[in-house]
């Protein structure tokens, strides 16, 4: 006799299906990114994925968990890709690999593995690396620099010295540094006039990468993998604070559009702050989570000492997520007037 419990009918879905769709949604952004900085980024994606799967397999084995079932769930690959996409594209391979292994081993499995980690593993790795290797993490290829693939590989794998051209910064960081150095002498409009660096809105080419993430994010929303709450709240709060300061002192603060399309804003809004495991789950909780992350990201990237603030913002909000959820429990069926 069988003991299968109801329901006997199940929707065709699985964790690996969900994770695969997240990866697919990243593809437009990755394509734009590869076009911008060259194919090296694809190499980084492979390096990170490989490191993630090896680390995952080793840890599963160590913890006596079924290998096939968990390796194929795709969650390690999502973490790996987020790391590859947030690190400088020409970072040495060992940095990317170490970061990924750290994310999987420490930030994921030491907390209990899939579904148990209180912090977003990719962001933990990012934060650890930016603190431990600030110089390497600041080496972005100068805008417009298109090294041939062989050259890029040589840089990533340390076969040739790290070229000077790598001392560039992201447009976001460049803007911050320039404003600081000029100490009020130059205004934002002047800086932005440098189309070579800043392109039309937020850094040449970067706006297309952001648009790619936006596209993928909308697709995930349409597929029901994420809800609108976090991205909308994130974008709204980022626009609100940057807009307010920009209106107050346009010479000192960049426009909301600049902030939306530069750095990790779009990736953060749609792919990082929406991580369900470490984020909020109630509708109101998600709104608070997204708004908080957007606000903190702005504050850190504009006033803080780091080139971008998305990673720290998300980690800080991860910390508050359980409390936010606890306080935001929605009223249930039939109990609405009481709540």
């Amino acid at each position: 006799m069988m003991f299968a419990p109801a329901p006997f009918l199940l929707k065709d879905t699985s964790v690996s299906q969900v994770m695969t769709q997240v990866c697919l949604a990243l593809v437009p952004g990755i394509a734009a990114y590869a076009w911008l900085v060259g194919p090296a980024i694809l190499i980084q994606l492979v390096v990170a994925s490989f490191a993630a799967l090896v680390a995952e397999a080793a840890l599963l084995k160590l913890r006596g968990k079924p290998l096939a079932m968990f390796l194929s769930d795709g969650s390690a690959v999502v973490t790996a890709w987020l790391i590859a996409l947030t690190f400088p594209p020409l970072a040495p391979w060992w940095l990317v690999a170490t970061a990924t292994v750290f994310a999987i081993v420490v930030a994921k499995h030491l907390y209990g593995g899939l579904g148990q980690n209180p912090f977003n593993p990719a962001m933990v790795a990012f934060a650890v690396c930016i603190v431990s290797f600030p110089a390497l993490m600041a080496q972005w290829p100068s805008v417009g620099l298109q090294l041939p693939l062989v050259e890029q590989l040589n840089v990533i794998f340390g076969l040739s010295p790290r070229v000077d051209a790598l001392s560039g910064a992201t447009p976001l960081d460049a803007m911050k540094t320039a404003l600081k150095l000029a100490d009020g002498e130059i205004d934002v409009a002047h800086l932005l006039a440098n189309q070579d660096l800043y392109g039309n809105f937020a850094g040449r080419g970067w706006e297309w990468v952001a648009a790619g993430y936006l596209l993928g994010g909308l697709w995930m929303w349409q597929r029901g993998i994420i809800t609108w709450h976090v991205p909308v709240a994130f974008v709204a709060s980022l626009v609100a604070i940057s807009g307010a300061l920009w209106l107050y002192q346009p010479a000192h603060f960049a426009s909301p559009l600049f902030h939306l399309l530069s750095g990790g804003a779009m990736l953060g809004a749609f792919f990082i702050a929406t991580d369900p495991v470490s984020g909020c789950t109630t509708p109101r909780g998600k709104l608070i989570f997204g708004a908080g992350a957007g606000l903190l990201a702005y504050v850190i990237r504009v006033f803080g000492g780091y080139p971008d603030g998305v990673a720290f913002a998300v980690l800080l909000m991860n910390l508050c997520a359980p409390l936010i959820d606890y306080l935001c429990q929605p009223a249930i069926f039939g109990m609405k007037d009481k709540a």
Partner: protein
Amino acid sequence: MLNLFKFKGGVKPPTNKTQSLGRPIAVAPLPSRLVVPLHQSIGGTPRPVVQAGDKVLKGQLIGEADGWISAAVHAPTSGTVVAVDMHVQPHPSGLDALCVVIEPDGRDEWTTRVPVDHRALAPEEVRERLQQAGVVGLGGAVFPTHGKLTPSKTVPMQELVINGAECEPFITCDDLLMRERADEVVRGIGIFRDLLQPEKVLIGIEDNKPEAAAAMRAAVQALGESFEVVQVPTLYPAGGAKQLIRVLTGKEVPASKRSTDLGVQCFNVATAYTAWRALAHGEPVVSRLVTVTGNVAEPCNYEVLIGTPMAEVLKLGRPHPDTDGIVMGGPMMGFLVPDGEVPVVKATNCLIAHSERLFPPKAPEMPCIRCGSCARACPHELQPFEMYWFARAKNFGKTQEYHIFDCIECGCCSFVCPSRIPLVQYFRFAKSEIWAREREKKAADTAKTRFEFKQLREEREKAEKAEKLARAAAAQAAKKAAEAAAAAGEAAPGETAAAVDAETDPKKAAIAAAMARAKAQREAAPPRNTEQLNAVQQRELDEIEARRQAAGISPAAPAEKTE
């Protein structure tokens, strides 16, 4: 046009209804033996009023309602009672219960039927007749219908909702009932309307049943009624009473309230039909419509006598050879019956031949990734993954904080979970565990009062003793013996009555003993709806059970004394 409301959540599983809609309702042949359980509705277990050897006629009373919330049970056909004994029940627990076993004589001869015009009777009398006729909710909940036909004294009855939604996949018996017997369904609704006097009557039918809706509309018109037939969007579980009430009236009935407190009441269409047959034709509920579908060659709806073994009914649909079980109910809320011999009961709306082709085995359970899909699918707007988390950790207080008792076990959450967690299973486990603990607590409380009472009495006795020291020693001893006997009787008050009966009538005694056994078994058995739990949980369950037994609070103990 009525303004419809939405309920949150819900899912859209493949409906699989067309298979069984191709044929008209057929009458299932008379089986060689009928096993009629006495306990077929919510509430008290009816008392058997026949004995082995008795001749019965179709529709003759065989089980008498026990208390107000209880409904009578009748012989489904004419024949001979061959036994009143324990048989395995169509329940996931696989427990036995007292049944009347009838060998049909093949004549299917009715007892005298007394048709009445309900309008000529007082409301109390109508309710009593419905109880005597064994009319219960046929949507699956089998709550005695007469118990829902008293309007609230303080809240005016605004809407009477009639449930013809039939949202569960595969099931089509209500659909066919409405198509073929709309007239009598509508007349039955008229009885409920007369008793409850609502401002309006709304008949909700999912919009994937246009034929049924048309037939009902035509019947309503032909009978000159003002009932409104409303097609509601097809969305599981739109046919849940609370969901349908929400869709049609906008009212949300919480678990803690009765729907009449909000001025609304809900009945299933099949219930209305049986109420009409019971009053206007004097026919008690001895059969019901059952959809036979799933892994069968000829899916169809049958009028089946209560007590027919399920395997025999399934055979009518010619199940394919790889059939490996029978699901009673739909694929969302139904369960695999423990044995093909279990009888069709009033709650049996559908039998699905189970096979791995039809319902592939589930993928292994993964950890929860907190994706929230379950919460978005939950029609009661609960947080299933939080309840799951706490149920797993056996933090049952917390599950209650997250409103586990508002869960209707509809299965939407399990349906959408990408981690394939049998969430409903965990909730049933948590609920039964909470009930068990409450029983333990009650038992402990009773034991405490009993102990205090005993102490008090002993003190009093001591005092009396001191007074009566002068009395003769022989008399003293005799009195003590009497008291001891009284104390022993007190320990099991329910069974004393049975014991007294036993002395007077051996046949009655046998039945009483069987009932006591059934009761003991029902209460003593561990909650068996937890089969899918892993080894660790199973061990913990066993420990809990052991703890219960060790504490001596298992109700099995006193009952066995009388045997």
